[in-house]
């Protein structure tokens, strides 16, 4: 029998039992829509996280106080809340002399009650030097940032994150106004564009950024840094810069045995690869769940096809009587299940795509997140392929049952 006839007959078989075909397809539609939706969510989550890491700046190397002895997956001591005083100004000065580093941005952090007039809120303040803003890719919405000159002369100036500016000033212009942190008055010189969550999980939009000198001496009473962010030159790989930084700080700290390091270095690539791994596992996990529903849909197909073979036993007998071979009957039923799953797959892709668009609009327009729309072509291709394969795999057994029937027994079937 020609493929043209097989397909035409299978289409007729599907068309003549519309409700049964629809119900059979439903399992596959749900399965494929889940695969599309969950793969898309996984990809979007990955893109959001990676965008956030990339948004911190470009070509960055982070020097953290305290050592982490094991793999890149273990968190550094400083991020576990342990106070370590090993990173100091001398380290930053030594690093600024290195040719492969174009900018050095040390920082300290603390929490304080911030007051403007009768408004107050508790927020993070970050003490930084002038280059910090460009290294971290901050964009000024209003006013300006501060300079190294102001840092060195202990000027009490502050740059506000976008959210805290709204909290303290509402709709009023904050520029030139005085705010108080731990009873120290600061003049607001700038407001930043929204930036989201930064390294260490700090909500940068709710932070107040002040000169590092003032933060260390007047607010915190410390002489060490919590973090030094370095911007590597584009001419060098981050791995090279990382090794240079290790040498410079070991020399500065008089460390000869690398096992005794009292600091740790992370590059943006480390963070991206770690987050990439985590989100890939998440995507894989979500997709696996979706595939389970696809298997359930496939078993549904097999079940309905078996019922269809029994119901159409006399038809099978008749077809064999007029010359159909076992192969012809096998093809006919296999095409039917493949058409059901293929069409189910296409509908599932459309439903999954629509749900993905719906979720995007809900998260972006209603919940106001930085959600990224992602409908990977690979997911669509995979879904179409897998749905067709499901039809083949789960349709094979019923089709073989149909093909094996003896013509005379099939014709006698009541």
């Amino acid at each position: 029998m020609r493929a043209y006839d097989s397909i035409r007959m299978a289409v007729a078989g599907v068309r003549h039992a519309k409700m049964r075909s629809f119900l059979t397809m439903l399992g596959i539609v749900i399965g494929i829509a889940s695969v599309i939706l969950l793969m898309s969510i996984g990809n979007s989550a990955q893109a959001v996280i990676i965008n956030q890491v990339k948004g911190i700046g470009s070509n960055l190397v982070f020097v953290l106080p305290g050592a982490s002895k094991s793999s890149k997956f273990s968190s550094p001591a400083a991020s576990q809340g342990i106070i370590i005083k090993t990173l100091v100004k001398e380290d930053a000065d030594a690093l600024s002399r290195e040719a492969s580093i174009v900018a050095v941005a040390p920082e300290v952090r603390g929490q304080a009650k911030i007051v403007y007039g009768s408004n107050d809120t508790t927020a993070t303040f970050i003490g930084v030097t002038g280059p910090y803003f460009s290294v971290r890719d901050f964009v000024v919405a209003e006013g300006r940032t501060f300079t190294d000159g102001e840092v060195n002369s202990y000027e009490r100036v502050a740059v506000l994150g976008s959210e805290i500016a709204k909290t303290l000033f509402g709709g009023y212009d904050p520029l030139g106004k005085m705010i108080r942190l731990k009873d120290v008055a600061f003049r607001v010189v700038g407001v930043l564009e929204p930036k989201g969550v930064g390294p260490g999980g700090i909500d940068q939009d709710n932070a107040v950024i002040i000169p590092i000198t003032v933060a260390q001496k007047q607010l915190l009473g410390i002489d060490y840094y919590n973090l030094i962010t370095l911007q590597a030159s584009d001419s060098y790989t981050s791995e090279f810069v990382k090794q240079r930084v290790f040498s410079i700080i070991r020399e500065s700290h008089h460390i000869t045995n690398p096992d005794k390091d009292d600091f740790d270095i992370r590059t943006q690539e480390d963070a991206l690869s770690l987050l990439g791994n985590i989100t890939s596992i998440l995507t894989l996990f979500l997709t696996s769940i979706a595939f389970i529903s696809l298997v359930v849909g496939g078993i549904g197909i097999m079940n309905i096809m078996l019922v269809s073979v029994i119901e159409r036993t006399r038809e099978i007998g008749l077809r064999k009587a007029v010359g159909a071979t076992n192969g012809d009957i096998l093809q006919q039923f296999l095409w039917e299940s493949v058409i059901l799953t293929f069409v189910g797959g296409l509908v599932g892709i459309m439903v999954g795509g629509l749900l993905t668009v719906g979720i995007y609009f809900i998260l972006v327009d209603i919940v106001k997140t930085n959600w990224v729309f992602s409908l990977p072509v690979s997911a669509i291709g995979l879904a179409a392929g897998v749905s067709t394969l499901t039809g083949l795999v789960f349709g094979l057994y019923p089709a073989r049952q149909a093909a094996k029937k003896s013509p005379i027994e099939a014709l006698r079937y009541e």
Partner: protein
Amino acid sequence: MIKLVGIEKRYEDEGESTLALAGVSFEIKKGEFVAIMGPSGSGKSTLLHILSFLDRPTSGEYFFNGHNVNDLTDLDMAHIRNSEMGFIFQSFNLLSRHTVFENVAMPLMYSHDVPIERRKHLVERAVASVGLEEKLYMEAGKLSGGQKQRVAIARALIGNPGVIFADEPTGNLDSKSGAQVMSILHDLHEKGHTIILVTHETYTAEFANRLIHIKDGRLDSDRPIVKARHSKAEFFK
């Protein structure tokens, strides 16, 4: 055309063995119109199934157009059923939700000899030959019993087979429709088709020119039918 030598058919069911045909031998020549009669359970339908390749004998030899059926594979038998045999069943066996056209065209789908572009012409000709050209695109399930059987005859004729097997073709029809069906079979015989008819109605058997009588799985008698009525008009008086 057909030669049976000592054909036996035995059915095994839950350890119990039933002999349906016990050493049946006869020959049928091309162009004959043979009626097979016998009481219920005599083995006449089993014999027709073996003759029409729907079943295989347990023992004995069956030669069809020179082929020993014992040497044919299931695939060979399917091809011969498609190209050289036509079937008419008591219960019509039409696909009720398919059109007359689709039902009649069915054997052509399994044929490698007929190009797709010739199908429409062949189907129209076959349907016209049974007088149903007006119903070509009607669902088969919506036809009357007599019309259904005429569609089944058109389906049997579509591949221009040498032999047509008819199993109680008038069994489910009123006398008028039955007469129409037998008239068509009579015409086909006149045109040179070999017709093998299983029936329990003497009136229907009288259309044949030879009567094989089966009893208890054995050949009871095999004799020519002496036609008292010589013309078609006389049959349908």
